């Protein structure tokens, strides 16, 4: 359900806030504890703040000069202020209108001492000690605590729930009072020399005084010297003591310390289960891979087997045989077809026809042959005649017949006067005989 926002002026809202605060009667009659800061006088009045943890309250004390007798209160002092909470409407703030102040001087001194110690230890580098790693799976967990404390019970319950594989070793110590400081140091020492993997220093919540021992220098220095990793879990989340600065791990509570010291078994069990599954699947894959590889090899081997080669050859032979069969079948079919066609043709053929045609064919062939033969003979005869005439033309005896003569010197015909010298014996041949003669004169030219 939505309610319409009301519209109002600043004066009205302020009045309503004033009314609202008035309704809580405890606010108008209250004692507030806190640490004082920024105390100052302004005229007769004093202004200051008190704080606790992260909260701050502004205070004003009218006529403080008179009420406090001119005394100035130091910063850091723990005080109790009696007064009432009211709204300062001009500034829009609320503050504590103080009537009286009671100082808890002890706390102030303690805090100052604590700050001093902190500074000293920090300067020594004690807080900068390198942190030791906390083992993931502790076999034994040393617990420095009171055996009757709620803190120890919390640790047992937490470890039991999370990681019951571990063993808890209790190093009992009182936790309050000066005596407890010595006890705690001793317990820490025993824990450090035990066979535990990690040491828990735990203490449940309590007042500042209750937890004060965990600010003691001796305990802080003992923690600094420890060889085993230490987890502190002192008080509640908001409490910080000096041991937290030197611990290897700081937990807000004893339960938190036990959690930091242990893994969650359920989670670990899940991981183990998952790892086992991974193992199974890994080996499964490996085996099936190997199987596949062997199968491949087997198949390859098979392809080289003589059986297979034989089968291949057999197949070739079979193919060839098939070809032959097919070829023969075609051939037979074709022959059958031819015979059938021939026999069909025979059915319609006249046996006389051939003998009728034959004599004519023979006659014409004879004539043709005769003609060819005669023509060839004529050609040859005229060729012979022609060659005969040509031969006659070249006969050397022909010119002799017409009255010319031939002159020889030895066995050669004399064709030119240059072949002849004086006294050469020449033979002159006529158509009807020959004469031997000796040369008496040789002349060139025709005269």
């Amino acid at each position, binding site marked *: 359900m939505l309610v319409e926002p009301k519209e109002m002026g600043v004066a009205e809202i302020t009045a309503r806030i004033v009314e609202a605060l008035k309704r809580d009667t405890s606010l108008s009659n209250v004692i507030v504890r806190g640490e004082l800061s920024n105390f100052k006088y302004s005229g007769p009045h004093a202004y200051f703040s008190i704080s606790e943890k992260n909260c701050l309250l502004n205070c004003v004390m009218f006529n403080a000069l008179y009420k406090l007798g001119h005394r100035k209160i130091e910063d850091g002092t723990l005080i109790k202020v009696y007064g009432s909470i009211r709204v300062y409407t001009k500034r829009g703030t609320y503050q504590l209108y103080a009537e009286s102040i009671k100082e808890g001087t002890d706390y102030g001194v303690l805090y100052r001492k604590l700050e001093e110690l902190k500074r000293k230890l920090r300067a020594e580098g004690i807080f900068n000690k390198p942190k030791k790693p906390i083992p993931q*799976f502790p076999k034994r967990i040393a617990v420095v605590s009171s055996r009757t404390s709620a803190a120890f019970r919390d640790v047992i319950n937490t470890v039991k729930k999370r990681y019951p594989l571990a*063993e808890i070793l*209790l190093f*009992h110590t009182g936790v309050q009072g000066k005596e407890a400081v010595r006890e705690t140091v001793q317990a820490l020492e025993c824990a450090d020399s035990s066979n535990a993997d990690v040491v828990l220093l735990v203490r449940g919540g309590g007042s500042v005084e209750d937890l004060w021992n965990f600010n003691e220098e001796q305990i802080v220095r003992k923690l600094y010297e420890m060889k085993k990793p230490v987890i502190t879990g002192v008080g509640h989340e908001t409490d910080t003591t000096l041991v937290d600065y030197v611990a290897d791990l700081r937990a807000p509570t004893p339960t938190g310390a036990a959690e930091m010291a242990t893994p969650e078994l359920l989670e670990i069990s899940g991981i183990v289960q998952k790892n086992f599954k991974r193992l199974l699947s890994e080996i499964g894959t*490996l085996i099936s891979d190997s199987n596949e590889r062997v199968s491949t090899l087997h198949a390859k081997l098979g392809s080289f087997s003589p059986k297979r080669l034989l089968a291949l050859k057999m197949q070739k032979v079979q193919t060839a045989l098939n070809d032959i069969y097919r070829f023969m079948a075609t051939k037979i079919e074709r022959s059958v077809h031819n015979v059938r066609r021939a026999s069909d043709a025979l059915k319609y053929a006249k046996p006389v026809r051939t003998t009728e045609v034959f004599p004519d064919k023979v006659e014409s062939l004879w004539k043709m042959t005769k003609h060819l033969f005669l023509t060839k003979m004529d050609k040859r005869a005229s060729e012979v005649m022609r060659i005969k005439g040509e031969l006659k033309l070249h006969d050397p005896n022909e010119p002799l017949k017409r009255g010319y003569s031939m002159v020889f010197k030895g066995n050669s015909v004399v064709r030119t006067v240059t072949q002849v010298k004086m006294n050469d014996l020449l033979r002159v041949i006529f158509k009807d005989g020959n004469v031997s003669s000796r040369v008496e004169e040789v002349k060139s030219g025709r005269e």
Partner: protein
Amino acid sequence: MEENKEENKIDTLSFEEAYKALEEILTAMEKEDLPLDESLKLFKRGVLLYRRCKKLIDSASLTVKEVLGDLEKEMEIDENSSNMGHGTTF
């Protein structure tokens, strides 16, 4: 014979040792170049380690002992787990 030895050895491992060894075996097995018989050996060991882890997880029950500082003598504390948490003993 040797397997028995191996099994006995694994049976004495702490949870952390068995757990870490199982993880190491997985890492080794996930490397591809491992021969098959090597992998099978690792696998067998892995199964034993798994059983060891499982046994420890299933049978885990918290033990609490008090160490008496000066005497350094461990003594069993009456650990009735059902009582614990109700503040009767602690």
